[in-house]
């Protein structure tokens, strides 16, 4: 770590090194221990943080009075709320589509069943058309798969 990087990290994460990401903290501690300029930099950052924090002195009575005023000024009759004319599509936003073990397991099972059914499931061909009541192979499947009249090609 270089001095400029230390300065940037102090600005980003503050002067409390314990709150820094581990690796960055270790690099900073090494630099501060080895370079007096880095130690000065840390000391200045601590002073700046302390001065910034000093202005956060809560002015409790003023704030409490102001908060009471704001709440008292809220109208007794609140305005009409804005609603979507069609709110049901919003329900889709509540559907949790994030991957989870159960959802992935269900998807895998369905996919497996699909493949298994495709590979080992019963085939329906013209000879099975008897299961259609009142229909024969010629009037159902054969009609559906009639050869093309001009070329004679079957679909």
């Amino acid at each position: 770590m270089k001095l400029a990087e230390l300065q940037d990290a102090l600005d980003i994460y503050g002067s409390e090194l314990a709150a820094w990401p581990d690796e960055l903290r270790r690099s900073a501690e090494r630099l501060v221990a080895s370079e007096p300029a880095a130690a000065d930099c840390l000391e200045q950052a601590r002073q700046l943080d302390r001065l910034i924090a000093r202005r956060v002195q809560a002015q409790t009575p003023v704030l409490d009075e102001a908060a009471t005023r704001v709440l008292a000024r809220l109208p007794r009759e609140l305005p009409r709320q804005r609603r979507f004319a069609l709110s049901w599509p919003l329900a889709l936003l509540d559907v949790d589509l994030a991957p989870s073990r159960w959802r992935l397991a269900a998807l895998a099972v369905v996919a497996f069943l699909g493949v298994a059914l495709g590979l080992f499931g019963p085939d329906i061909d013209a000879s099975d058309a008897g299961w259609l009541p009142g229909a024969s192979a010629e009037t159902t499947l054969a009609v559906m798969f009639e050869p093309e009249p001009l070329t004679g090609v079957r679909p």
Partner: protein
Amino acid sequence: MEEASDEALMQRVAGGDQVAFRLLARRYTRRALQLAHRVTGNQADAEEILQEALLRVWVNAPRWRPMAAFRTWFYRVVLNLCLSRRRRAPFAPLEAAGDPPDPAADPETRREDDEAARRVAAAIAELPARQRAAIVLTYDEDLSNAEAAAILETSVSGVEALLVRAKRSLREQLRSPPERRNEEDR
């Protein structure tokens, strides 16, 4: 009895429950007022902004989706109102006046420290609005950079850049002697 979460209250507010709304408003008014005050630097503005923000919460509650924490959403509303509002009066940093003195320090050190604190407060007041907002969110509200980024509607690296620029300005203000700064101000 366990206190209802913000999100549960918002669900009730979305259904038109005024009691839940007033409960939520009471829960956040003080802190949001502090946030607005520190960003705008004007008490009257802060109160107006908060009033408007609360009414927006009520009006838009049916459209609110619990994608982020209520606090993040509400602070975003407040902060956007702060940033879009033009300053009506020169910034008067409330912090510039009387901080409790450090009893351990000698009078000379205390005087110097008070002077430095006043300069930092004044310098923060003069920062560009988004840099000031980043300082207020991370120091005053004690939020993480990621939470501040969500409120400022930017990336974490965006907040980090704001903090770096803000603190660079503050350091420069602290380094320059007060007399020179006064001359520059004129």
